[in-house]
């Protein structure tokens, strides 16, 4: 029974729980429900991935209406993998959320906070589950609207302007996406993505299709925070409540990556990316993003903001892999989606623990805290190593595949820039570590204690995962390889 409705349950459970959580009394009950919901979803997502890997594609017809008329949930290795990343990160974030949210969010808003969180979670999961491109738009809006609300809950007043900025940019992106979908619908008469795959080749020469493609591309690129459309991201990540930063950094942009890959390689025929300037565009913007965002990161004094710029740079790596449009490039992108979620999750959580203790995370506030909070500090060190791509960490695996993909295409400039990106990561994370450990502690910081267990444990789950997936890549590389096969990208 569960097996048959797995795909639907993943969306329905959090969607149904969201309004319930909103009306629960204050206290810890809303959190408990959210915790249970996310954990259940994580288990279901794991089962779904297992089912897909072993039995092949799952097609679920919503309400029994056959596609392409009804909405179809169509799960293959690609989206099952992304769904697991989202649900898994949510489940790990929730234990962390309890204390962090109590500290950063006014008590009377706590139930609403968890309700909005679950809605956002629903939206993100929905995007991965659905096989209907209009449905993607709907879920995209569910997740976006709720994330605007979540970001605006941040403690500082700038949270409001950041949320507003994101609202404007996000809405632009969604509108572009919708226009694109409309244009394509006008020529193909279908919204089912599998169906689109079959029909688009017939009309591929039409200008309308190309225009629609361009609209969709830009719309998602905004959501993806692809350089130079990333302007909303640093503010949003900096001023959002820490839990939300952790969650969004690890999942929201990743879902956009998924949609991008789905449309570029699955909806549009193989070779379209390389036949049009799309591939080159991704390569150029990816490379520019890696360098420019990393350089920006080195100048930041707020650690959260620094990590946000680093995220923009990491998205550059993912875009680069997409731009290569080869099997190895896409494998690298998908692996990095997973690995980046692990490293940024761990880093933002560790920084969140510092904020929990001292209420800020500017370079001059955190001086000498490494000695007071050794476990948090160690988490930051391991997270940084993974971000840099030191062997033995998950980050190395991503870099390895990405550089191999670049070498395969003889894209020497890309190789050099990827490696320079790693060095810039050494510089900016080095600054954080130096401030934490090698600067003398201020008077005030000497009395700071290590973060509570409830914050440390989830952080360390991710830290250990960073090392585990650096040494055992059966899951990541295996699934990513299978996903690329599903997408039908020819090995190059």
């Amino acid at each position, binding site marked *: 029974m569960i097996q048959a409705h797995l795909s639907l349950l993943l969306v329905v459970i959090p969607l149904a729980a969201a309004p319930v959580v909103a009306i629960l009394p204050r206290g810890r009950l809303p959190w408990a429900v959210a915790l249970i919901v996310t954990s259940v979803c994580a288990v279901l997502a794991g089962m779904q991935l297992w089912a897909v890997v072993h039995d092949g594609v799952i097609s679920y017809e919503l309400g029994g209406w056959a596609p392409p008329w009804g909405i179809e949930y169509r799960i293959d290795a690609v989206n099952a993998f992304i769904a697991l990343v989202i649900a898994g990160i949510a489940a790990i974030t929730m234990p962390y959320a309890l204390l962090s949210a109590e500290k950063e969010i006014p008590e009377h808003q706590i139930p609403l906070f968890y309700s909005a969180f679950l809605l956002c979670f629903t939206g993100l999961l929905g995007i991965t589950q659905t096989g209907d491109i209009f449905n993607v738009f709907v879920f995209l809006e569910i997740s976006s609207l709720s994330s605007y609300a979540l970001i605006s809950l941040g403690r500082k007043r700038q949270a409001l302007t950041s949320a507003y900025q994101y609202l404007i940019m996000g809405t632009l992106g969604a509108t572009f996406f919708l226009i694109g979908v409309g244009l394509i619908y006008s020529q193909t008469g279908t919204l089912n993505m599998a169906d689109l795959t079959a029909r688009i080749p017939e009309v591929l020469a039409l200008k309308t299709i190309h225009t629609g493609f361009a609209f969709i591309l830009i719309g998602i690129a905004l959501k993806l925070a692809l350089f130079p459309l990333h302007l909303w991201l640093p503010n949003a990540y900096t001023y959002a409540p820490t839990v939300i930063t952790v969650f969004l950094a690890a999942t929201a942009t990743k879902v956009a990556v998924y949609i991008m890959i789905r449309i570029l390689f699955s909806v549009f025929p193989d070779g379209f990316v390389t036949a049009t300037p799309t591939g080159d565009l991704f390569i150029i913007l990816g490379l520019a993003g890696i360098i420019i965002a990393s350089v920006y990161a080195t100048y930041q004094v707020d650690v959260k903001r620094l990590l946000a710029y680093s995220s923009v740079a990491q998205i550059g790596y993912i875009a680069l892999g997409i731009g290569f449009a080869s099997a190895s490039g896409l494998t690298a992108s998908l692996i990095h989606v997973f690995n980046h979620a692990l490293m940024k999750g761990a880093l933002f959580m560790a920084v969140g623990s510092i904020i929990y203790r001292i209420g800020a995370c500017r370079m001059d506030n955190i001086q000498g805290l490494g000695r007071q909070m050794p476990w948090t500090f160690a988490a930051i060190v391991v997270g940084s*190593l993974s971000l840099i791509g030191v062997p033995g960490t998950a980050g190395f695996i991503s870099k390895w595949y990405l550089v191999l993909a670049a070498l395969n295409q003889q894209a020497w400039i890309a*190789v050099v820039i990827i490696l320079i990106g790693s060095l810039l990561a*050494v510089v900016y994370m080095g600054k954080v570590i130096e401030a934490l450990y090698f600067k003398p502690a201020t008077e005030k910081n000497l009395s700071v204690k290590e973060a509570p267990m409830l914050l440390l444990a989830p952080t360390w789950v991710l830290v250990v995962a960073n090392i585990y997936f*650096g040494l055992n890549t059966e899951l990541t590389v295996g699934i990513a390889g299978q996903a690329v096969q599903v997408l039908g990208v020819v090995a190059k």
Partner: protein
Amino acid sequence: MSAELLIILTMLLPLFAALAIVATRHYPDLREAVTLVSATFVAILVVIIAKQFLNGEEFALTVAEPLPGISIAFRIEALGMLFALVAGLLWLVTSIYSIGYMRSHNEKNQTRFFAAFAVAISCTIGIAFSDNLFTLFLFYELLTLSTYPLVTHAGTAEARRGGRVYLGILLGTSIGLFLLGILITWLVTGTLTFQQGGILAGKLDPAWSGLLYALFLFGIGKAAIMPFHRWLPAAMVAPTPVSALLHAVAVVKAGVFTLLKVTIYIFGSDFILSNDVTGGLIWVAAATILLASMVAMSKDNLKARLAYSTVSQLSYIVLGAMLASKSALIGASMHIAMHAFSKITLFFAAGAIYVATHKKLVSELNGLGRAMPITFGAFLIGSLSIIGLPPFGGMWSKWYLGLGAVETGQLMLLAVLMVSSLLNIAYLLPIPVRAFFSKPASGEHYTEIKEAPKTILLAMIVTSSTCALLFFYPDPFYQLASLAVRGY
């Protein structure tokens, strides 16, 4: 004990020691006992492994396989055995030395010091025993990271600046060039495992081989080839035991060792010789030998002078690797050991002088010889061994290196080696000469000054007498070195 267990134990023992050191941080005597006991065991272990290895026993172990075809694996071969033997034995001597040094200096953060030191040794053994480039690279990077807190130990602005240069150059070259070289090797051959005779022959277009070799040569920043040598003088802000073991032995030798491994087991001597892979690059090493010696002459700070001397001596090994003939490779491999024992003696002496007199400059040493005869005697022996004079071990490695230059017909390079020996005399010998024969400036009399503490003296005596012993009995190292190049 089984072979796997021995390998694991040698690597894990220092790691556990690091944990135990942290656990016993409130009891300094116990903490130092942990260091000494584990260093003793590691020394015994490497000797046992070396004995069994020379008896023909196989040591191999695969721990994990992160990527298909790329594993974390260990296998002991002759060159790695030689390196592990040097590092393992000298850790014990250095531990004895550091306890005296750190205590008489009242250094802060001694727990961090001893713990990071132990981790660094574990990484060094990992490098020595690794079976493929990936494993080697993993421990190579970990070694850089674990020695960073040792370089910045003092915590001053100068130490932090030194640390930044250290990390910047070592990580920069390794990620930017070394990793790239590894990736290209993987792409071309589909394997990273070290093999007798190399893996590139027949797979790599000889036209590109020079470029790939250059990636390794400059990417392995720990070999301190110019222009990427700046990290080594920068690292001299560390306490002297660190400079002695890590920046004269473990870290720098890890660099040249890696380069030798790449030369012998990735490229293969035949491939290099028949395609003239290193024809142009060899002059970079020759230039480094001479330039670094000249810079050393101009340095008044004793540790800086020794650091530049190390840069120069490392390039002897690099030069030997690039000559790639049998004798040259034997000379290069032996120089790992010979230079290690001589240079560590010099650093020990420099540290002893600093502990006893707080003097750092060569020009201040006039007349100190009578007050500290053992220290300066050891310094003299170390210097003579570095210069390559009998009856000290340094002679053998230079002999084989010179032989290699003649063998390959590179007489210009032989001249470089000769000139360099003269330069060595010029910057090293004046130091003991000043100490023994010059009068102190402004008529001072060193009546108050005594020799450094006993543990320091003991360590110096051990290493300097080993320098002499190695002249008469270089056999273990010679045997290992010639095993590494058998088949050529």
